[in-house]
């Protein structure tokens, strides 16, 4: 069964600091990987996703993530965070087949950006 681990539960950064949130998954086959963001009181929104091709994926709002297959990792990065990036970030993996997508989410990382 697939699983996702996010080791950072709560991250506090000052504005303009660089961000890297860890995500590791466990599944031996082909995977699709996602990062979602949940702003306070809001629903989940897709930041970026990896299906195939270039392992460095660029998403919205200046976020990017790198898929490293040998490390089973898909870490999220942003060179300079803003106060408006304060949110919960979820890594997710889909290893389902048969055309049906069963996405497993990590436990989330709460990012707090201090002005």
């Amino acid at each position, binding site marked *: 069964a697939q699983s996702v681990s996010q080791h950072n539960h709560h991250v506090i950064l000052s504005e303009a600091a660089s961000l890297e949130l860890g995500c590791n998954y466990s599944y031996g086959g082909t995977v699709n990987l996602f990062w*979602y963001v949940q702003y306070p009181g809001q*629903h*989940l929104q897709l930041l970026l996703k990896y*299906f195939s091709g270039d392992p460095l994926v660029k998403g919205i709002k200046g976020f990017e993530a790198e898929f490293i297959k040998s490390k089973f990792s898909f870490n999220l990065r942003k060179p300079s965070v803003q106060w408006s990036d304060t949110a919960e970030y979820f890594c997710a993996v889909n290893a389902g087949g048969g055309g049906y*997508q069963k*996405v*497993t989410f990590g436990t989330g990382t709460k990012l707090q950006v201090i002005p």
Partner: protein
Amino acid sequence: DTAVSQTPKYLVTQMGNDKSIKCEQNLGHDTMYWYKQDSKKFLKIMFSYNNKELIINETVPNRFSPKSPDKAHLNLHINSLELGDSAVYFCASRLAGGSADTQYFGPGTRLTVL
């Protein structure tokens, strides 16, 4: 235009009651989901329907019963509500196919059982 909508947004009720949450998507997607997000923000899939057919049914108490009258709607009915059912319930729909394959989430329904 709202892509995935849920009603109600907030639901406060007593233990033992029966309640329903509705979800509608106007994206033309074939697959819809229900997720439960607990107080620690852990997001867990509950059910998935594809073209009105149940395809994912995780270990969920049978007090929870999804119903899909058509592929644009997936409702969640909960019988005999318990304190532990308090959570935010998210509906999602999926656009399938290649690199576009992703899920779109609704705004959530915050259920509080007293």
